[in-house]
């Protein structure tokens, strides 16, 4: 039962990732691309969590955690770049 659910869920998440990527490639505004990248990151977290459930292993959890962190920071950086070129003033 769990495996069946996992299969469906993973399929859904992959679909979501593809959609995000599509938006990322399509644009049009750079904000769109950044938002899409952010979403892609979050989707990836979901994917990783599901994988680690399927693998019945907790070794990949930190990876998910880090994706969350880095996704956030990356988004902030890109957004600040869009706001004003300078990230650090």
């Amino acid at each position, binding site marked *: 039962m769990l495996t*069946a659910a996992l299969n469906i869920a993973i399929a859904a998440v992959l679909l*979501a990732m593809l959609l995000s990527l599509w938006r990322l490639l399509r644009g049009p505004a750079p904000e769109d691309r950044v938002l899409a990248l952010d979403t892609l990151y979050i989707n990836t977290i979901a994917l990783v969590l599901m994988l680690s459930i399927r693998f019945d292993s907790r070794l990949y959890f930190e990876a998910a955690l880090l994706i969350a962190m880095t996704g956030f920071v990356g988004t902030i950086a890109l957004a600040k770049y869009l706001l004003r070129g300078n990230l650090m003033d």
Partner: protein
Amino acid sequence: MLEALASVLILFGAFFVLVGSLGLARLPDFFTRLHGPTKATTLGLAAVCAAFIAFAAGSGNGLSVRELLILVFLFITAPVSAFVLGRAALRRGTPSMTPPPAPLEDADDDRHR
């Protein structure tokens, strides 16, 4: 029992994650697209995390709080990044269906330190 719960949560989460990206892909302009990921996807991920916790508890590792960390992270970061992005879009005059409100949106952060 826990496994059943996990399965349900997973499906639930996956659904909302998908919805979020769907919104991102389909909605007409940036400001509307902003909603999909920030709300739906976050919710979906929350469900997935819950599923993970449930599953972990089920697979005999006992209930552990670490998994909540991601959730906390997300609940803090999602709005922030959404806000910053929206602000950037406003500043750069990204086209929007409805004309943007009068620029009073600086009021919120003009007074710190």
